[in-house]
């Protein structure tokens, strides 16, 4: 059963209502700097421009420019108004009040009908949207009047803070109901119409997407005449394109090129701490990884600091827990000082020998460090395997492509094929709310057949209770304490060896101004808090 409403006393706090006032802060740009074309390099081919269909970062770069979301996240990572100017929370539902006078690119006004159509389409199981699980808390959206919508929650979900964060994500962008119904989904996906700062012009599959300024944008006057997103799958070629000036922004910078590009006065390397967490996680349902002594010995076999530095250079920082340091519920000091383990080969060897003597680790024991096929995680897995071999454990690296790894990890904890899976180098992503990481990594909801996130199959009622309590409270201090303690309990069980938080690194030509890197990696060009402009060439 998913999260039941736990403490109705907490709900009474929600019923008081919470109204946010529109407080956007679009930077002013001198008129002389309006105009020009910005070319952005993207590493992957897009599959969809309709925000209702998929949740991929690469497409999000483009959809952010075409569509507006109901809510947004401010520079302080707090939920802020966008299309919705304010909201009120009641028992089991939330009412959003929309800004008036917003028009789509075809001139139609954005109203409550469009908001309801977009979200109801996503949650309708028949439409098979990849986003349906993200909005699992939402039963339906009801139109109250032209500028008011009522979000009705599923009965087992009380309105809770994480759901507001899902409404800030690009996939909660609003599509025009009448236009979609008239065009059909397929045609709309190829010729999307939003209410965002830039209008769709053309999409040459695999090559580029061109957008132009929406002169009627309701929030501000977008600075750029045109934006071109070019698909350049090979990262080293992307770097060459950035150096030659063919692109102004690259959505990624290869680790080995960072120091060279930093010396180029024409290029600025921008970095932001991200919400992406890399860890070694243990299967808690099979021996010997279900034994805390084994897990601690594996942890002690590796100098994690050195490993992270060697593999990621300055594109990641050492992680001590699941919560990124940029989120308000982080607990870095405690986890670093009291939970993290230093490399101690002698102790690790002693523990492994003891476990072998007890029969917990069989004499002919062989284990694999499973990893997806990306360079950094392969290297991390190799470091673990090499150090384990030195400490008396016959370990080797097993690299799996994305499809097979999802299939393997998505199995039920009762699946006998999982008994030989002891540890996996994996990663998880959070959003602007601290809910995601502890919930998906440690909550029992995600540790059974039918879910595919808690790949450790870890179950701990105390952790569940704390996470549930945090998710249903609006008191930030209560939430912080609950998340902090839930993570402490899980990590003191050494369910993970926390490894790294990745840094989002993007390259920008010096002629580009007002560009910032978002922690979720999605490129934003114009919105409540930014309006990118370029120097004329």
């Amino acid at each position, binding site marked *: 059963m998913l999260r039941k409403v736990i403490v109705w006393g907490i709900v009474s706090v929600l019923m008081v209502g919470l109204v946010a006032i529109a407080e956007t802060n679009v930077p002013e740009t001198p008129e002389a700097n309006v105009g020009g074309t910005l070319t952005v390099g993207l590493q992957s*081919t897009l599959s969809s421009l309709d925000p209702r269909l998929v949740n991929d970062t690469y497409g999000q770069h483009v959809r952010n420019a075409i569509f507006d979301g109901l809510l947004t996240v401010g520079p302080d990572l707090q939920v802020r108004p966008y299309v919705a100017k304010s909201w009120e929370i009641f028992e089991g539902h939330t009412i959003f009040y929309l800004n008036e006078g917003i028009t789509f690119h075809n001139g139609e006004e954005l109203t409550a009908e469009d908001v309801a159509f977009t979200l109801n389409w996503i949650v309708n199981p028949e439409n098979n949207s990849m986003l349906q*699980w993200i909005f699992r808390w939402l039963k339906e959206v009801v139109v109250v009047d032209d500028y008011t919508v009522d979000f009705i929650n599923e009965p087992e979900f009380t309105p809770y803070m994480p759901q507001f964060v899902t409404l800030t994500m690009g996939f909660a962008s609003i599509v025009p109901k009448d236009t979609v119904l008239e065009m059909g989904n*397929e045609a709309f996906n190829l010729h999307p119409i939003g209410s965002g700062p830039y209008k769709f012009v053309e999409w*040459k599959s695999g*090559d*580029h997407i061109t957008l132009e300024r929406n002169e009627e944008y309701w929030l501000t006057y977008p600075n750029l005449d045109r934006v071109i997103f070019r698909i350049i*799958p090979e990262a080293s070629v992307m770097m060459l394109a950035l150096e030659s000036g063919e692109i102004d922004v690259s959505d990624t910078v290869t680790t080995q090129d960072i120091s060279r590009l930093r010396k180029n006065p024409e290029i600025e390397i921008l970095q932001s701490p991200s919400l992406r967490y890399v860890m070694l996680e243990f299967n808690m349902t099979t021996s010997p990884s279900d034994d805390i002594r084994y897990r601690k010995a594996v942890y002690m076999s590796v100098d994690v600091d050195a490993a992270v530095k060697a593999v990621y250079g300055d594109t990641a920082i050492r992680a001590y827990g699941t919560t990124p340091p940029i989120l308000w519920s982080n607990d870095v000091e405690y986890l670093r000082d009291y939970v993290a383990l230093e490399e101690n080969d002698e102790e690790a060897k002693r523990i492994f020998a003891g476990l072998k003597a007890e029969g917990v680790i069989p004499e002919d024991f062989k284990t694999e460090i499973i990893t997806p096929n990306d360079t950094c995680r392969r290297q991390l897995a190799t470091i673990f395997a090499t150090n384990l071999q030195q400490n008396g454990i016959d370990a080797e690296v097993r690299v799996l492509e994305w*499809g097979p790894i999802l299939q393997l990890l998505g199995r039920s904890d009762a699946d006998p094929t999982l008994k030989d899976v002891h540890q996996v180098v994996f990663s998880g992503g959070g959003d602007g709310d601290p809910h995601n990481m502890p919930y998906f990594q440690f909550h029992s909801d995600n540790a059974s057949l039918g879910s*595919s996130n808690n790949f450790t199959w870890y179950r701990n009622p105390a952790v569940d209770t704390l996470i549930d309590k945090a998710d249903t409270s609006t008191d930030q201090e209560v939430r912080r304490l609950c998340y902090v303690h839930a993570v402490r309990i899980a990590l003191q069980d050494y369910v993970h060896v926390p490894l790294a938080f990745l840094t989002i690194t993007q390259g920008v030509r010096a002629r580009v101004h007002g560009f910032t890197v978002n922690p979720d990696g999605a490129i934003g060009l114009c919105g409540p808090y930014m309006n990118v402009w370029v120097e004329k060439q």
Partner: protein
Amino acid sequence: MVQYAIRRIMQFLFVLFSLTVLIFILLKTMPGDPARVMAGVGPTQATIEQIRADLGLDRPLLVQYWRLVSGLFDGRLKAITYHKTVWSVILDRLPATLEVGFFAMAIVMIIAIPAGLLSAVHRGSLVDYGVTTIALLGISVPVFWFGLMLMLLFGVILKVLPVCGRGSVVWGLSFLTLDGLRHLIIPAITLASVQIAMNVRLLRSNMLEVMYREFINTARAKGLSEGKVIVKHALRNALSPMVTNIGMELRSLYAGAVLTETVTAWPGIGRLMYDAIIRQDEAVVFGLSLFVAATSLISYLVVDLLYVYIDPRISYD
């Protein structure tokens, strides 16, 4: 001739059918689950099952096979990740690959024929050593690295050519605009690099073989100029195996396109294949594999039939 053509067409259909079965078996034995990849990280089992049902992946294998084959032939088979039909995805990308392939082939001809000829005629000379060494390098150097070096030199250092992409396109073709033509040069040279080297070596050895044949001596004895002997008599005979090779090389061009198009960000079917495999879009992989196989088979057939005109000694009657 007609009987031969009919027999070859029947063979073609049989091979094509066998390929549909083979590709289907390969797809189904590939590790991973397309529904799970499509669903990404996080969905519930119910969502995955729903996707699987929508894609027909929960049906018996024979039904799935028939769905792919019939869907491909009636044009209604939809790509899993592209939200449109497989044919429209392939046809979107095909002009880019044909264009770069055609230009690469032209470059191969323009460079390989004179180079092979020179090398053979001046056998053992510095020119010969120079050409064979460069040809050896051309075969040995990885296409990936060669493409990157071209981009670095012409795109970043000299700044005379764009690094990557396709540039302006008119009626689906780049070379009709100056910008598009400039974008075409690096991918075409990259794709041509291996083929140039192979064809230089092939033509050189063919020429050397032909140059010592008696009819060449006869031609010389007739008092023909050396130029005429080489071009009209020797080259014509030496070209025949090269035409075969180029016909067969359509397959190599497709294979080369996967690498070249990925490196140079050229939006053709080579990159489409790479993307589709990574995304486990089995509809696109199936459709594209069959398309590539069918066009390669047709090219072999055409080359075989062309022999009659190239080499009068060959007859299928």
